[in-house]
């Protein structure tokens, strides 16, 4: 089988539609992951163990099981519990929830990266706990986390094909459908690969530029 330009051209509009869904899901998922991750982090650091321990277990569980299976559960089991969300919403929530466990780790290491001396100085000044977080710790912990957070946004972008199992017609579902209809996978799948690269490369570049700005240049080895 050789590359068929005509077919590739014909499928492009549908694939671009799929790409739209993919991008939208990624953006919405990222927004959820950013907020929820911070919530998880703070809950995990709570001094009340009935909050911190269940959160820790929950986060660890979500983090170590496949998104695919979580999507199945959200899609087919939640409605039985009376929660009816659209397939797209389910996918976005699944992505956001899954990646929140990662961003939570990022925030955590950002917070741990703040030198102990900062906590001690804040205590020596008797600053109230909320103030310690908002004016001392988070302003120092969040900026260094931005590149890692950006990387997860890219990773999420590439996970969206898994939404195919819950009937969201994102990029890969469209390609599979086209392939199954026309029995040609080569063109749609290749186009997807290129589209992914076209989106992820500039994003990765941006993230690295940020990283370079935040972490002063290393040196020759």
């Amino acid at each position, binding site marked *: *089988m*050789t590359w068929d330009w005509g077919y590739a051209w014909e499928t492009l509009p549908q694939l671009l539609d799929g790409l739209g869904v993919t991008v939208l899901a990624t953006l919405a998922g990222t927004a959820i992951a950013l907020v929820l991750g911070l919530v998880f982090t703070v809950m995990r*650091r709570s*001094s009340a*163990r009935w909050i*911190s*321990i269940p959160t*820790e*277990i929950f986060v*660890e*569980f979500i*983090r*170590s*099981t*496949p*998104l*695919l*299976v*979580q999507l*199945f*559960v959200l899609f*087919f*089991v939640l409605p*039985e519990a009376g929660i009816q969300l659209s397939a797209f919403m389910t996918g976005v929530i699944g992505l956001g929830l899954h990646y929140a466990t990662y961003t939570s*780790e990022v925030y955590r290491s950002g917070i741990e990266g703040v030198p*102990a001396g900062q*906590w001690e100085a804040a205590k020596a000044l008797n600053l109230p706990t909320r103030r310690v977080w908002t004016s001392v710790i988070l302003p120092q912990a969040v900026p260094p986390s931005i590149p890692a957070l950006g990387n997860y946004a*890219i990773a999420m972008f*590439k*996970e969206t*094909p*898994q939404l195919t199992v819950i009937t969201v017609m994102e990029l*890969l579902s469209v*390609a599979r459908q086209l*392939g199954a209809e026309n029995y040609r*996978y*080569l063109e749609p*799948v*290749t186009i*997807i*690969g290129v589209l*992914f*690269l076209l989106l*992820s*490369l500039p994003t*990765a570049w941006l993230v690295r530029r940020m990283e370079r700005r935040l972490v002063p240049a*290393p*040196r*020759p*080895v």
Partner: protein
Amino acid sequence: MSPQLFAYLLEGLLTTLQLTVGAAVLGLVFSFAAGIATCSPNIVVRGVGRCYIELFRGISALVLLFWFVFALPYAGWQLEPMWAGILALALNIGAYGAEVVRGGIVAVPVAQIEAAVALNFTRSQRMRLVVLPQAIARMLPPFGNLLIELLKGTSVAYIVLIPDLTFAGQIVRNATGDSASVFTALLILYAVLAVIFTTIVRLVERRVAKSLGRQPTPGFFARIKGVKA
């Protein structure tokens, strides 16, 4: 559940393990090759390393899998789905691993390299004797995370004919019609696998940390026991 269906699950579990371990080993090779390449003073070597990382981080493992299984045969060679799976996952995870390797190398304090210069080590001796042994200790925790990523990532393999754990789950689901318990079982099985992998990585971490005379960072269990500063 019948013994046969159980056998499917077991086989799926083994396939998942095989995929994970195979891709981890191969991915580790890619990681080090590309990671060290990006720290090379030679611009060509550095360029090749960077290209590999950007390309394979940018394409999802699923797309790679599709390519290897359904497109590559037209270019004249065909991989067993299992090998295609291992290769695709390894290429993908290797690109992430390369970033970890690079990060580990860059994080070794400059002072260590200066000390090695003061002792007149050659460039490659510096890398081999001083930088890498220290860098590896830093790489282990992120490598542990990548291993879990990989484990979960294998679940996409079922889409290209590789009968992994998720696939086995689908078979059982179709045979018994019982979606909820199959999904629950899958979640638990993956979590158990993840815990096993994490434990192994932490043991290695502990060993390496000890060989540097360091305290390893507290793990999950230590964390939920609530040891806080």
